[in-house]
């Protein structure tokens, strides 16, 4: 690493423009600088490529194993090219492994929960960010405190609370989609409120005032003026919530256990855990791989299509 190249040039990013008025002297002054740079460029590519393979290879291996027969998985575990494509594995995991119904359950729950999270989260954030009233700070900090508390602490009473509610109102009891939607919303509010709060703060006052002068009501002002203006923030937090809730496994495992005879309302994470536990007894390896593939591919495809938004959405979530 001793080959320090004394070449003028920025390090900030790929789209660097040259500093104006630079001269070639420094480069000439250090012999071998170019060779060093070329070596470093090669090393960069090598290392980056190795890491890229380490990321992609396991994923590819899972997808390809999902298309093998069971005996092939055992005999030739490493090969990436199945002898004959076994689409039946997917059908089996979809029906017998219940991945299909779990998948639809997840989509159903997420449709409701993400929509409600966004709606209620931005409503609360908006009011907290732009209206002065007693208890404003208190409520804001109450939402904020949820960010630091570990979910495991609440596990036992939450389970008990849901169970007790279910005795009176079965649609709010364990193993109900509606209950899970509400729980997801409640647990996503902390971050959504926190994020949208800082967003609504930055919106200009002039437009809100103009709206009020024109006689818009408070809620009308919110829905037709402020909410559309907050669109970039909504997209970020929306992506964050979709991924976060799709990936949830602890809350469903806690609250969505179906007793024998009840409908299986579980979500996809639970389906995968079930598959991975069962595989030990039934050794349906290809079915397991097919299940993992089906849980993995939709998200990956959505990500590849919207990669710019997903990347900036998720990183914005951290750097706020």
């Amino acid at each position, binding site marked *: 690493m001793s080959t320090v190249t004394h070449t003028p040039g920025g390090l900030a990013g790929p789209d660097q423009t040259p500093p104006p008025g630079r001269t070639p002297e420094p480069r000439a002054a250090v012999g071998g600088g170019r060779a060093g740079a*070329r070596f470093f460029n090669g090393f960069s590519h090598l290392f*980056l490529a190795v890491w890229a393979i380490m990321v992609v290879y396991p994923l590819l291996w899972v997808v390809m194993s999902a298309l093998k027969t069971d005996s092939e998985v055992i005999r030739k575990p490493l090969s990436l090219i199945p002898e004959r494509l076994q689409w039946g594995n997917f059908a089996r995991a979809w029906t017998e492994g219940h991945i299909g119904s779990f998948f639809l359950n997840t989509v159903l729950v997420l449709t409701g929960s993400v929509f409600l999270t966004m709606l209620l989260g931005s409503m609360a954030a908006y009011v907290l960010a732009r209206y002065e009233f007693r208890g404003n700070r208190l409520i804001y900090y109450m939402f904020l405190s949820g960010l630091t508390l570990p979910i495991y602490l609440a*596990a036992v009473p939450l389970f008990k609370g849901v169970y007790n509610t279910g005795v009176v109102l079965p649609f709010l009891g364990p193993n109900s989609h509606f209950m899970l939607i509400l729980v997801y919303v409640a647990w996503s509010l902390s971050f959504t409120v926190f994020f949208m709060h800082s967003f609504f703060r930055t919106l200009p006052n002039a437009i809100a005032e103009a709206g009020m002068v024109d006689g818009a009501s408070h809620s009308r002002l919110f829905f037709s003026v402020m909410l559309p203006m907050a669109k970039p923030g909504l997209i970020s937090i929306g992506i964050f919530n979709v991924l976060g809730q799709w990936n949830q496994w602890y809350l469903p495992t806690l609250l969505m256990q179906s007793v024998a005879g009840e409908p299986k309302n579980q979500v996809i994470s639970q389906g995968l855990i079930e598959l991975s536990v069962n595989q030990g007894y039934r050794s349906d*390896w290809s079915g397991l791989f097919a299940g993992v593939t089906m849980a993995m591919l939709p998200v990956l495809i959505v990500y590849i299509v919207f990669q710019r938004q997903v990347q900036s959405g998720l990183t914005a979530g951290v750097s706020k």
Partner: protein
Amino acid sequence: MRHGVARFVTGFLALPVGLYLFYVVWPFLQAAGYSLTDWGGYSDRQQFVGLDNYLRLFSDELIRKAFWHNVFFLITVPLFTIALALFLAFLLNVGGREDKAGIRGVFGSGLYKVIFFFPQVLSLVVIAVMWQQIYRADGQGLINGMLMKIGLVSEDEPITFMYDPEPFLGVPAVLWWLLLIAVWSGAGFYMVLFSAAMQSIPKDVYEAAILDGAGRFHTFFRITLPLLRDTVSVAWVYLGFIALDMYALVFVMTPSQGGPNHASEIFASVLNFTAFQKGQFGYACAMGVALAIFTILLAALQLRITRRERIEY
């Protein structure tokens, strides 16, 4: 008019606050209450026992083990993830050829970013089940299979991964293998984060450095890295939370969810076992409260250490 505002504010807040109170705040408060009782969870019988549960925590061998395992992840997960992410971001942004336009990012840096980000969009459960197959303790697993093929591992003595409680550098091997997964899945995300931060550093900062004749390594270590301090410290706090949340991996991957022989036990796994298998809800709640206090102290400590004047460009 004043009346209208009050009605509007109440109307907008009622539902979110109500849901939050019922499903988040109330369980937390109850947990604090139960932690002072010997409630078993399934009966109505419960007795106030004061701080007994908390005192018991200190003499509990399992908790002590879990605590040190948590501390292990708390140090290693952020350390290795950030180091690797910074290194990748450095290569990506500085490793390119030089031409008239100065030093460029490597060719195809956009593609690398897309790929490195993959694990971030996969759920922890998918990652856990996938790595369970990669880590299989026979030739059917990806790693063992490869190593057997090139002859580094004999068929009779495969690497046992999740079943290996033997300490390596004083820490059970199974924890190191879990750490590898965490780093694998986190590095790409933080690389993208650091990359973005690097690109938001204004160019005239570099121009000044270049006038002084600084090269790419110099510029990176003397200028880029110090200016990234804010982002790195935020990343550290987030990774700290993730480290406390390794439970998904432990739950899916390790034998009897914390094994072998309690070698991969962490706070969350002990808590769940105590509450739902042993039926000691009161004691489990005390663990939860202790964990919460620990988390909050840690977050406060981290913010305190990393807080510094913000650099405005």
